[in-house]
């Protein structure tokens, strides 16, 4: 199924639900992410926002509904009544333009920063070692780590590791990047450098879906903010609508808790 019109969404989630056993963790989620859109998913822990992101990456299988990536069905063969998982090759094909950044960085510790960035360039894109290294150096420079190319992850700070992880994704030239709480495992002092890289990306027109607790980032950078609670989208809107407009009591409460937690002066 191909829907190739000009402003077709990069990611489209239709009536998607996800069960873990008998617990329903996502209920009838509908989302559309347009090219160059930055969407932030916010909500209390356990609201399903990370699970939603992992479903969009098909690191979790969704139970019902559909997810389309650039018009192509993700994870399942759609042509029969009985849904069947696609092959790994087909799945990788649909995900080829998707990058993902994780809370725990998930770098490969036995490879240098450069090795992490170039691995898929060599193995998946089949670049020569020389071309891959050239490109790897350029991308590390872009995230401010030109000097750290030959360091192993254990020799880098959390913020630097996360920037390497972003560079690793960027090297594959994705059309959409997923961020799963990219700053939650960082010391507060290191959050800024990672958010700055993400802001630069957004400015360059990258399509991004970001699960975050950084309300400041959501307010400044997002085009759309989605509030999830107990597996459902309770509100979706511009940062202004979400943070300043009329909102459901649950979101009001969530934001109030956030403000209280972060207030250090009366």
């Amino acid at each position: 199924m191909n829907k190739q019109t000009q402003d077709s969404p990069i990611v489209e989630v239709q009536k998607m639900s996800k069960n873990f056993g008998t617990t329903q963790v996502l209920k009838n989620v509908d989302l559309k992410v347009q090219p160059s859109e930055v969407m932030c998913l916010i909500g209390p822990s356990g609201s399903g926002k990370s699970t939603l992101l992992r479903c969009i990456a098909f690191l979790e299988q969704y139970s019902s509904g559909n997810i389309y990536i650039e018009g192509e069905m993700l994870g399942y063969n759609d042509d029969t009544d009985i849904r069947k998982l696609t092959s790994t090759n087909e799945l990788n094909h649909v995900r080829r333009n998707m990058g993902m950044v994780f809370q725990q960085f998930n770098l490969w510790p036995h490879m240098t920063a450069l090795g992490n960035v170039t691995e898929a360039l060599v193995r998946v894109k089949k670049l020569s070692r020389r071309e891959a290294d050239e490109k790897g150096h350029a991308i590390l420079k872009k995230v401010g780590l030109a000097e750290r190319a030959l360091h192993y992850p254990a020799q880098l700070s959390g913020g630097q590791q996360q920037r390497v992880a972003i560079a690793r994704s960027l090297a594959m030239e994705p059309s959409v990047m997923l961020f799963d709480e990219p700053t939650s495992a960082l010391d507060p002092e290191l959050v800024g450098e990672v958010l700055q890289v993400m802001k630069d990306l957004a400015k360059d027109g990258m399509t991004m879906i970001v699960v975050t607790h950084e309300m400041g980032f959501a307010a400044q950078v997002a085009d759309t903010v989605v509030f999830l609670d107990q597996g459902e989208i309770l509100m979706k809107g511009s940062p202004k609508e979400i943070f300043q407009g009329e909102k459901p009591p649950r979101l009001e409460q969530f934001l109030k808790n956030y403000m209280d937690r972060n207030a250090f002066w009366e």
Partner: protein
Amino acid sequence: MMTFDAQLILNHLPDIASGFGITILCTLIACFIAMLLGLVVALGLMSKAKILRYPVRLYVEIIRGTPFLIQLFLLYYGGPSIGLYLEPIEAGIFALACNGSAYYAELFRAGFNAIPKGQLDAAKIIGLSRLQIIVRIQIPQMMVLIIPGLVNVSIILGKETAILSIVTVPELAFVLIGIGAETYAYAETLTVLAVSYLILAELTSRFGGWTEKRLSKYMERSI
């Protein structure tokens, strides 16, 4: 009165050296095949398909649950009844390799499981294939993690080669026990035998330590 006739050992030195050579050869070849086989067995143990996992699990349980001597006899004396005629050294190495594979496999499995799942998520989403993930991400890390265990199993396999003497493989135990039986110099021959295995074990352990140190550099926090 205690006597220890060093001259007797010196007189038989060429035979002893040849026996030691065969012991090392059997150990090296058996360990090598056992690791390759063990890797395949480990992947089988971790397979989602029951049709693969169950037979492999059975294999591991049988190997671990029966004495090596019986396994060797089954292969060497039982083999011909199913048309499998092996030279003593072939049977010995093959039996040893099968025996070791079960123990290596459990180590490999533990090593695979010790690698954080997130690293695999990152590899999947970036498009690496299953095989690339195993070869490029999992094996290099898990090999470093399990080196102490590998050394253990390898030392045990090295010592088990003594059993091969029973099916007349002319390895070290065969040679020295033979000399002992001829000359009644049991103390001399058995002492040399014991010390030889001690040296073999020590070399294996040193080699493991050296490899571990070299390969685990990436875990150090400073350059």
